[in-house]
């Protein structure tokens, strides 16, 4: 069993991570050890990464023991880069986390500075803008983020500092390594550190389009204060959206607590919206689930998804909408309260098989498509005006036992859901053949879909059903006899 982490006192006593526990115990009998919990560590690191969003939306976990935060355009909010670094390290140490920070033009350089470039008594190290090359020259080659064998190879060649790599021409570097991948890897990492190559990185959440935030000296605890500040933020965001002639489709309110945790409340809207009252009304319903904990010290409202607003849409703030008006506001409220799948609209699909001919999509996505048409007249649903169809269609046709009059005719009696029903009248058949393009490349032994003969039958009490016979009597030899199903109910 090896040691994974040591505290300051153990480090001063000379124990390093990687030593075997038994050796360390032999050298220092008073050693106290605990089992490592890598899963809990990972979760705690993710929580810190979420909290670090207060400094900027572009951030994520870096390796197993660090975070990276992209502070492009954020530093001025904290009074400069040095003040920002002070703020981060002070807050993290107040949570009881030992922290070292590095700030540079590129992620690679910042990574190296944080881990290997901090002076002994300082918590952070900063590489001035455009002076990255000098700043990282003195870092050891472990800062290149290569795996251990390659680092060992570099050391064997006598390259211990990154500065030594600058002077060697690139092709001669490639010649020194046995294979060209190692050289390529080293060069790629070096270029990334110097900013000559791009480094792809994925933030925790997609960065929002527009964002307004407010920090508090005294952490907020009461919900009235929270609502008031959120309303002000909504007004600011609405003004920012209006300035760009955009409307928000999804807004997210993030609150950062004083103890290092964070939470969010999200609201989605069916049509692009820039009315603060509507956004607040939707977000207010989520406030009940917010726990302020030790107090909230930063509130941020992001517009995550935006779209251009159609000039013809009515505002939500109009008190009297006519009967032909848009139910967009209602759809937003209900969808945010019960889930976006709870309120749906019917949409057609390209198939003539009844259970596949229509589908139900969440109304919050389909409403814009349905009602923001620029034409004064939108053509109605493309349903076939043919034989009558049932008002309710079962998701899966249910099998029934049937006694038919003639093999090719409608049933005379059938048993559905364990009740026998006697047919008084019937209309049909309407043949719905399977989609021929699905049967083209079937093998011999695969089941082929069979044609269906639909009948509209009515029983003696007046209830009407839509039944079909799956397959034909006297069809191909050795095929299963046809079976009957109920597919829908007429209202």
């Amino acid at each position: 069993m090896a040691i994974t982490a040591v505290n300051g006192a153990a480090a001063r006593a000379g124990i390093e991570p990687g030593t075997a526990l038994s050796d360390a115990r032999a050298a220092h009998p008073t050693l106290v050890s605990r089992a490592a919990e890598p899963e809990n560590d990972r979760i705690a690191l993710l929580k810190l990464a979420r909290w670090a969003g207060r400094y900027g939306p572009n951030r994520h976990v870096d390796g197993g023991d660090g975070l990276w935060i992209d502070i492009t355009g954020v530093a001025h909010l904290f009074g400069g880069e040095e003040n920002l670094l002070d703020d981060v390290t002070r807050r993290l140490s107040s949570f009881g986390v030992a922290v070292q920070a590095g700030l540079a033009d590129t992620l690679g350089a910042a990574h190296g500075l944080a881990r290997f470039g901090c002076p002994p008594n300082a918590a952070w190290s900063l590489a001035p803008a455009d002076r990255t090359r000098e700043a990282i020259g003195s870092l050891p080659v472990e800062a290149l983020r290569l795996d251990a064998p390659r680092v060992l190879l570099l050391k064997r060649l006598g390259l211990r500092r990154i500065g030594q790599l600058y002077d060697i021409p690139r092709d001669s570097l490639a010649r020194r390594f046995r294979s060209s991948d190692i050289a390529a890897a080293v060069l790629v990492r070096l270029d990334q550190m110097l900013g000559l190559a791009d480094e792809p990185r994925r933030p925790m959440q997609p960065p929002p389009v527009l964002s307004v935030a407010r920090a508090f000296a005294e952490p907020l605890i009461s919900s009235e204060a929270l609502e008031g500040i959120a309303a002000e933020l909504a007004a600011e965001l609405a003004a920012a959206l209006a300035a760009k002639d955009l409307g928000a489709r999804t807004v997210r309110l993030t609150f950062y607590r004083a103890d290092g945790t964070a939470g969010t409340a999200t609201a989605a809207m069916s049509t692009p919206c820039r009315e603060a009252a509507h956004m607040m009304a939707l977000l207010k319903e989520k406030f009940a689930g917010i726990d302020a904990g030790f107090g909230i010290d930063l509130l941020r409202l992001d517009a995550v998804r935006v779209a251009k607003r159609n000039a013809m849409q009515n505002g939500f703030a109009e008190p009297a909408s006519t009967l032909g008006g848009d139910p967009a506001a209602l759809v937003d409220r209900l969808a945010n309260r019960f889930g976006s799948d709870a309120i749906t609209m019917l949409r057609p699909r390209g198939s003539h098989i009844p259970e596949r001919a229509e589908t139900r999509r969440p109304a919050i996505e389909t409403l814009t498509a349905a009602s923001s048409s620029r034409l004064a007249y939108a053509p109605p649903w493309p349903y076939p005006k043919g034989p009558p169809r049932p008002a309710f269609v079962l998701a899966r046709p249910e099998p029934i036992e049937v006694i038919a009059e003639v093999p090719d005719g409608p049933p005379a009696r059938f048993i559905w859901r364990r009740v026998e029903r006697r047919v008084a009248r019937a209309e049909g058949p309407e043949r719905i053949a399977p989609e021929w393009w699905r049967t083209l490349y079937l093998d011999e032994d695969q089941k082929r879909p069979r044609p269906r003969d639909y009948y509209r039958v009515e029983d003696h009490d007046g209830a009407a059903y839509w039944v079909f016979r799956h397959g034909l009597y006297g069809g191909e030899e050795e095929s299963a006899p046809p079976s009957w199903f109920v597919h829908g109910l007429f209202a």
Partner: protein
Amino acid sequence: MKAAVITGLRSRILSLERHASRRDPSSQPDDAGTSSRRWSWELGCPSFDELLPRGLETNSVHEIKGTPSALGGASAGDWMAAIGFAARLAVRRLDALSEMRAPDAASRGAPPRAARPWVLWCWPKALAGEFGAPSAAGLAHLGLDPSRLLIIETARASEALNALEESLKASSLAVVIGVLNEIELTPARRLSLAAGETATPCLLITHPSSEPVGATATRWRVARMPSAEHRFDPRAPGAARVSATLERCRARPASAAWPSLLLEWCDETRRFGLASGVADLPSQTRGTASGTVAATVRTC
């Protein structure tokens, strides 16, 4: 003298009960005709509409129940009868709205948007599993526009009531249809108040054997009857027929008898008509063209 006072009081009560919706500024009636159509709509069958003194009011809840079977349960057919009746009432309401809008539009100049009214359907998931999903082709056949239908399926009945109340308060729907197992007095009163605020009618379909509740404007008991004869094919089912009993009507005195009539829905004119006659007994539909007594639909 006393009669005059009573008549005066009656008319005052009527005008008070027909309260204007508090939120609709266009509620000032400019002429009596359109305002009366805004506040109520009819079945389209005059002999039944005489029984409803104020028509089907738009500012209230109407409850529709099927007929329970012998064991107190309800089969799919019983529910379907009630749902079909409610859907057809909704179609009548949409027709009444478009009639009301057409003369307005002609006189004032048409609004830039073709305003097609929206219908909302709300039920808890438990009932959704019984009957399947509403089908656009079928609803279009009944007369509703499937692209103007919002369907809400909630996990619990209480959430369905919440959704119904919210949708009644938003004044952008033409009619709201809710299907529930049962409803209690207080939620029914809340729905009634919400419907009154925005003059949006709410059609509630409840389980046939559930306790009837007293906060609704009308309560119907419907049972599906064997359908009319098909014009061309004696063996095919024809126009839908339903036997409707008006169990409760707030505008009628409580002692009046419960009228029950056999109504037939005509697909082309989208109205209810009175079906009479004892023909179309099931035994006569086995292709015996002679001896069939044709039912006469009195288009009254």
